[in-house]
């Protein structure tokens, strides 16, 4: 479980996060939604320690304040975190196999055979069996995301962060990636936090949804009530597409 308390972040005069609080529970796929510039990525980077928040707390496992602890202790917690970046962030100079094996090389004393078994099991889990020797430039956008997920779960993390996993993907591939993240969360019973503005994800996998608007938490709930209730800002965000506007009209009728 991860709890954030009154998280604030400013860049100079600009306040990007204005006191965001929330609880992301284990075994659930939690979504942080909001329009571009609402502070989703900054919130996620503050939670994983890539950006130091101006104020507030990020509590891991009920008692570890990630903001207050030393860098050495942070490194230990980071080994329990897997993260999928917006652009996948695969290492260009390495093959798919080397990319996924990298955390194992760095943090375990496994033999090469054991590492290879673990890599193949992760590749199998993301439906990319046999693509070990490909390099990132040979992969499609969806494949890169899946390799990113495989790398994120190779050390069996307790926490999985996904920054806009659907960006740049077609709707079908997006749904596959969403389902994969959802299944992995259930299967490994991990705390998963996904930044997205993809409505398919919201409706499909959001066990817990936090809506950010101008750096503040505007609404929280789940996929069952996100279409039925909420603030004006949330409704404006969700029903921005004509397709969903039509659904809304039919729901009202």
């Amino acid at each position, binding site marked *: 479980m991860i709890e954030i308390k009154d998280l604030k972040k400013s860049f100079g005069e600009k306040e990007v996060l204005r006191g965001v609080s929330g609880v992301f529970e284990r075994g659930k796929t939690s979504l942080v939604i909001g329009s571009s510039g609402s502070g989703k990525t900054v919130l996620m*980077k503050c939670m*994983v320690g*890539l950006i130091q928040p101006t104020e507030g707390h990020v509590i891991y496992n009920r008692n570890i304040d990630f903001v207050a602890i030393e860098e*050495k202790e*942070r*490194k*230990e917690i*980071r*080994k329990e*975190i897997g*993260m999928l*970046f*917006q*652009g996948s*962030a*695969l*290492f*260009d100079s390495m093959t798919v196999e080397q990319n996924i094996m*990298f*955390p194992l*090389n*760095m*943090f375990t004393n496994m033999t090469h055979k054991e590492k290879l078994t673990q890599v193949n099991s992760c590749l199998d889990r993301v439906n990319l069996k046999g693509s070990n020797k490909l390099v990132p430039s040979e992969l499609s956008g969806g494949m890169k995301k899946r390799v990113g997920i495989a790398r994120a779960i190779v050390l069996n993390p307790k926490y999985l962060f996904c920054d806009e996993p659907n960006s740049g993907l077609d709707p079908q591939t997006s749904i596959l990636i969403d389902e994969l993240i959802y299944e992995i969360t259930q299967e490994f019973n991990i705390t998963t936090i996904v930044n997205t503005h993809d409505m398919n994800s919201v409706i499909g996998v959001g066990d817990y949804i936090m809506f950010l608007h101008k750096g503040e938490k505007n609404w929280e709930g789940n996929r069952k009530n996100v279409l039925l209730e909420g603030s004006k800002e949330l409704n404006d965000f969700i029903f921005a597409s004509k397709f969903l506007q039509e659904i809304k009209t039919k729901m009202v009728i």
Partner: protein
Amino acid sequence: MISYRFFSQFGQYLFLLKKCFVNPDKPSIYWREVMRQMVEIGVGSLTIVVIFSVFLGAVLTVQTAYQFTTPLLSKSIIGSIVTNTSIIEMAPSVTCLILAGKIGSSIASELGTMRISEQIDALEMMGVNSAAYLVLPKILAGTIMVPLLAIVAGFLQIYMGMLVGKWSGVLTQEEFMQGSIQYFIPFTVTFGIIKATTFGFIMSSVPAYLGYYTTGGSLEVGKSATRAVAASCIFILIFDYILAEILI
């Protein structure tokens, strides 16, 4: 304002160097990365060093002979001038200025691209000391391989100078060798190696700093690479003078 910016950047550069040497995660991984960088920097730059040195040595002999109009001096002095100039200046400094363009831009653009495509963030996220993993092997490889390249350059320049002197009829091989040996000061070799080691450190650490802290997009990566080459060349020239003042 300019001095504030300079000192702020210099502080950040020192901080990066400190980060490189503190808590490297797993020595075996670093060793492999150092080897890879040594091949990339050393073997990868060998062709340009050979081509450059062959022609520079030839030009040195021809132009020194051209300025040698008095018959009162022995022709063997041409050999001495070519040898000493190569060892003391051409091989370490001029070769490093050429290498700064190739190695500097390559290091800055590689790290800059890794920064903007979040690959460095990914390393940090995994709990890897990204500076130690990415920057330290480049600095070590640069500091080790550049002096070796300078030695190759010096040897080729002198050898080509001797051959061209013979082919063009300016002086015989024996005269060249006689001049080289007669006026040879052993310390010039030590001095040349000290210079090349210093320049190797500069041309790997300065571009690494500029690439590592790149912000923005692909345009900024290009700017970082350009700044890396310019800054490396300027620092090489400054340290060339400082070392000459201190050591000679």
